[in-house]
């Protein structure tokens, strides 16, 4: 099978940089992520403020832009309170794991095509290898440790519950996320981020693989513990969740990790489905759109669009109930992904072995899938699930008559049955009053 390769489709261009260029890239990514975090926190407060008919921070710096910087400094300078009951070593490591893994993912995100840094022609990406998308999954699964360990090490009930919740939640949604990658792998014939971007030269995968995109975007909100899926830190139920007992710089690290993760998953969504650093349609007509440093602009534009959606969700939707959330992940997202992957695999195989027009087949299959899901939902509504439940309950109540000798043996009542009071009078012993004459 021939792998379509675009501008940076060859993996051999990675790993050739001199040390100085590598250091510049590493530092660049770190600085960009920190700046993005500050900017996202500010944007979140401003946008949510607008959505709630208020202004938001507007005092520190132009438009209040320096507000999150000031808040960060304040947070770092605050007194650190370490509760007595913590497991100190793990308590220290947890925020570090959270923050470092959040930064690590960005190493494989392509920010642009080949550019010239210090006279060296090099891709705008720290590194890439044949399975870099799986590397992102691996790092995400290590990142869960940060949250879980924070919950455990705090030695307190609410953080523990928050940590357990988040591990269950993130593992469940990681499955759906991994399944949504599979369709992209099948179409790009590769698991490396730069080749996936190269494969989207003519058509973005959001058009071709819309269900995967929807599943990924849903899973990424669950994966970053953001509203409406922010159950690990549901303040109404768990106080602050896993970071209840953290303060000062350690809390700041969790805060940083959350926002860096938001940027990272948005970058992944952009890379996998929105053509990565490639210019969107009207701009792509310009011949210089996909060369030099310009693509970074399109790339971060797309990331900001995703970040806006994150903020929009938080401003709009109430938090889900935990059981409904898990049910949605396991009973809706994962089965739908599996069915969709089967369709994609069939289409891909047809394309490999015949001149079948798979694009229209895929679109038809997507339409059928959407209609099928919609119809099943309507069917469920129309058949009256509640009536059915009521009938079931009546049936159970009818069977509630307790037969103490069912099957010829004395049996205890089942949970929904009531034991009949015995026909015999209970045996009573007349009480003897001590110290009193009759």
């Amino acid at each position: 099978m021939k792998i379509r390769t675009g501008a940076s489709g060859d993996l051999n261009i990675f790993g050739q940089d001199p040390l100085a260029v590598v250091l510049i890239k590493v530092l660049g990514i770190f600085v960009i992520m920190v700046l993005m975090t500050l900017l996202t926190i500010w944007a979140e407060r401003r946008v949510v403020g607008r959505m709630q008919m208020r202004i938001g921070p507007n005092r520190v710096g132009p438009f209040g832009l320096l507000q999150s910087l000031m808040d960060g400094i304040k947070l770092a300078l605050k007194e650190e309170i370490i509760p007595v009951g913590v497991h100190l070593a793990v308590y220290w490591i947890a925020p570090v794991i959270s923050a470092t893994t959040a930064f690590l993912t960005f190493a494989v995100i392509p920010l642009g095509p080949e550019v010239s840094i210090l006279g060296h022609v090099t891709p705008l990406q720290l590194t890439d290898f044949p399975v870099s998308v799986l590397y992102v999954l691996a790092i995400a699964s290590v990142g869960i440790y940060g949250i879980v360990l924070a919950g455990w090490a705090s030695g307190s009930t609410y953080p523990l519950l928050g940590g357990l919740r988040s591990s269950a939640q993130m593992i469940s949604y990681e499955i759906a996320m991994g399944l949504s990658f599979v369709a992209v792998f099948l179409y790009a014939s590769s698991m490396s981020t730069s080749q996936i971007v190269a494969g989207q030269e003519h058509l973005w995968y959001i058009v071709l693989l819309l269900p995967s995109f929807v599943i990924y975007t849903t899973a990424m909100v669950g994966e970053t513990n953001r509203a409406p899926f922010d159950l690990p830190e549901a303040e109404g139920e768990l106080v602050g969740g896993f970071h209840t007992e953290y303060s000062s710089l350690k809390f700041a690290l969790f805060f940083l990790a959350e926002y860096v993760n938001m940027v990272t998953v948005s970058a992944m969504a952009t890379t996998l489905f929105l053509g990565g650093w490639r210019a969107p349609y009207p701009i792509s007509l310009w011949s210089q759109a996909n060369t030099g440093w310009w693509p970074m602009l399109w790339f971060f534009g797309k990331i900001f669009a995703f970040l806006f959606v994150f903020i929009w969700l938080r401003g709009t939707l109430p938090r889900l109930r935990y059981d409904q959330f898990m049910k949605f992940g396991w009973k809706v997202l994962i089965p739908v992904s599996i069915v969709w992957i089967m369709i994609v695999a069939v289409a891909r195989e047809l394309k490999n072995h015949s001149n079948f027009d798979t694009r229209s087949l895929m679109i038809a299959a997507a339409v059928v899938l959407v209609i099928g899901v919609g119809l099943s939902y309507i069917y469920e509504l129309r058949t009256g699930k509640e009536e059915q439940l009521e009938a079931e309950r009546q049936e159970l109540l009818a069977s509630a008559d307790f037969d103490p000798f069912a099957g010829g043996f004395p049996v205890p009542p089942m949970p929904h049955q009531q034991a009949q009071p015995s026909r015999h009078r209970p045996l009573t012993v007349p009480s003897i009053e001590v110290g009193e004459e009759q």
Partner: protein
Amino acid sequence: MNGESVVFWITAIFAVIGALGLVVSRKAVHSALWVAFAMVNLAILYFTLEAPFLATSQIVVYTGAVMMLFLFVLMIVGVDSSDSLLETIKGQRALAILLGLSFGALIIVGITATAAPAVVGLVNENIGYGGNAQGLAHLIFDRYLLAFEATSALLITAVLGAMVLAHRERWAPRKTQSELSRERTRSGQVTPLPNPGVMARSNSVDTPALLPDGTFAQASLPTQFQSHADDSVKEVTS
């Protein structure tokens, strides 16, 4: 010393530290963490050995899923439970150390005595199929397809077995959220019940709250205490 051997010596030492940490930790959670640490170091070794797919799946599957499951169970079992370090069999520890060391010596002697062929690495194998992942795919889905499918059938059977074991029969259909809210509206008590009273001399749960006219709010007590509400309040307010 090239880059590969630098990485090897760092990760190898860390992996051994992780393995030792597993054995000597007194808390089960710490042991689990040491294993995770050792696994991540092994994964880095796989990366340097040109098996990136194995490395990432090692982290995703073992560190991310299996060890996380272990941690999950350990955390649910108890936050502060540490194992008893009492020896149940006399001389067990000394014997274990002796046997462990001799097994290690045996392995070291065995490996050093073996004449290994020249190391060729995975480069040629990887190029032959067009990449590491493609080569693995070729082996799994072509040459060892039957074994692979049989293993997956076994795993699915195990999952089904676990589901059957954990299944609990429901005696009544679960109430939906709308049913619950409807029931609550019709019950005559839509809001939560009032809290127990907080008095100067007692704030225990068996102290009823006082209504504006000074009478007791019986609903503020747990049902077990409702009958003797009068006595306790007399005591509190007198």
